[in-house]
């Protein structure tokens, strides 16, 4: 479909050019061409990624997908696994506080997420040669905010779920698939129906993909990214507090 669409666009512009040439020839023949030149000449320029190399677009997006998988999908099993194998009671009987439990459970995945970020960044830099025009520090800070939100989503799922199968399916439905399909990673958001477009604002990877692409290819600083960063931070705070409240409830009951 896409191939056909692009092929048609190319063909149309070739045919259009031919048509223009033909007109020009005809006008020449009728010797009026010195009086006629095309009134408007389009000058098209592609910014940020002039050769339209799709890897420049995919690699930054991929960072967000991979971090979402590590952060949300893997953490979605942490608490429910303890419950399913029956070790949750042992954990509760220790003097561990809920907040300590959350931090202890999430730090390994937080570290893993960062390791993956570094790996993808290095691959992008040296293997795929994706230009990086922005600030590396900025990317790492924003990635941390994104990770906290994503980890909390996984943790929340884990607290709600009663078995691991449910947890993975819910994590898949609630985190991975939106990250893949509603983030603008593959499918342009402007094409979606309006309801879905509104829904994409609730999907953290949508903001993160936009941030990553802007930092990578447009080289913008924090001043241009303020809105998406604030959204990510709000999301992180909201979900973290929700998850810890839920956890406290399950432990007390």
């Amino acid at each position, binding site marked *: *479909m*896409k191939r056909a*669409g*692009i092929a*048609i*666009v*190319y063909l149309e*512009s070739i045919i*259009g050019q031919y*048509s*223009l040439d033909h*007109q020009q020839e*005809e006008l020449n023949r009728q010797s*009026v061409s010195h*009086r006629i*030149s*095309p*009134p*408007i*000449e*389009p*000058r*098209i*320029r*592609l*910014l*940020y*990624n*002039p050769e*339209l190399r*799709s890897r*420049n677009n995919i690699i930054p997006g991929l960072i967000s997908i991979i971090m979402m998988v590590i952060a949300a*999908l*893997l953490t979605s*099993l942490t608490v429910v*696994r303890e419950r*399913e*194998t029956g070790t949750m009671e042992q954990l509760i009987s220790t003097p561990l506080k809920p907040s300590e439990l959350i931090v202890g459970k999430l730090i390994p995945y937080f570290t893993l997420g960062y390791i993956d970020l570094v790996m993808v960044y290095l691959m992008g830099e040296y293997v795929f040669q994706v230009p990086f025009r922005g600030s590396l520090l900025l990317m790492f800070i924003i990635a941390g905010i994104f990770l906290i939100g994503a980890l909390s989503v996984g943790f929340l799922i884990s607290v709600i*779920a009663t*078995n*691991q*199968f*449910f947890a*993975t*399916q819910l994590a898949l*439905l609630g985190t991975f*698939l939106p990250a893949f399909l509603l983030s603008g990673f*593959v*499918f*342009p958001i*402007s*094409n979606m129906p309006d309801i*879905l477009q509104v829904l994409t604002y609730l999907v953290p990877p949508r903001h993160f993909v*936009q941030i990553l*692409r*802007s930092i990578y*290819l*447009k080289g913008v600083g924090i001043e*241009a990214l303020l*809105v998406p960063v604030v959204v990510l931070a709000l999301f992180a705070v909201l979900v973290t507090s929700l998850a810890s409240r839920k956890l406290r409830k399950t432990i007390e009951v």
Partner: protein
Amino acid sequence: MRHKNSNPDTVMPSGRNIVNPDQKDRAAFLESIRRIRFLIRKEFIQIVRNRQNLGLLLIAPLIQLFVFGFASRLDVKDVALVITDLDRSATSRRVIDAFSRSGYFKIVAILNSYDDVDHYLERNKASMAVLIPPDLERLVKGHQTAQVAVLVDGVDTTTAGTVSGYAQGILMRVSEEIMAERINSMQGILYNSATPKLIIPVILDASRSWFNPNLNSKDFFVPGVVVLILLALSTILTSSVIVREKEIGTIEQLMVTPITRLELILGKTIPCFLIELITLSVVTPMAFVIFDIPFRGSILFFLFTFMVFLMTASGVGMTISAFCKTQQQAVLTSFMFLQPAVLLSGYAFPIENMPLVIQYVTYLNPLMYFITIIRGVFLKGIGWEILWPQVLIMGLMGIAYIGIAAVLLKKRVD
């Protein structure tokens, strides 16, 4: 056994021990079926008795179908466009009109300075900018050529190419219109005698695509969405039911029962398979109802190939479960399979555009064959006569995976 009994050289055992070997085989077979049946019942109860699971198994595929069916579009429409009009003349309005009437663009702002455009492009408020120079009308009226610059955000490569093509086309059309007017107005001056009309040939736009005439990306993607939903379900479901026993430690209990390895695998996967079939029979009609996609092929062929595909996907799940000790490992490993499988299937990214090495890798991807089959069945109405190689390869892959799983599972348990 049969061979030994029929050998005349061996000493015949006492009459009481002689059992018809056929009967014995049948009895063993029936016993095996019985064991599998018990296991299936146990699995079913385990999956379905949990209210959470049941709800999710019923609702999740529908949400997925709905959201992802609508999200998967690559047509270009409503691209955010910002225009800097320094001319503010009739001609510049004409250009702006042409963009807004085309249906592909949504004009978010009309600005008074070129520099303001950066703000919109950098903050992703617009993905295209049209810059109209201050002397547009003067140049056009003076029969000269005015340059109109179009800046396209190249970050989103999927749309940037198409969008710049559209922009070029729109501007060229405006230009042609103005030229035609100009020529018409010159008719009298140039040719007041012999040839009253100047003939300008216009070559018609004659593009037409086959099979999906409106280039409806919905028709192209929705069948794929159905496939992805079931792929994820079957791989993860199958891998987690087996690994679950290992993780909780009940696999030893199963091993001391007279159940054989193959019976265990069958008993574990048949319930999953049934659940997947139920999901399929709910999701497919819904896909037709919600998205109004055409179905040009044979339902029977569709169902048959889908079952082959589910077998292959379950086979992958089984192989994964043989390697993993915890469900977390199983899920992550499933992802290591699912993600490349989806990306290298031709579902979203055309395989022809991939590097040659990667193109060879796609031949190992069962999903690649099935996406080809499904699109063929839905959109082209082709069946067995053209798609048999794909079906055959996919089926063989499935059998191979199940075989690998059976061998590996034995080693691990021993």
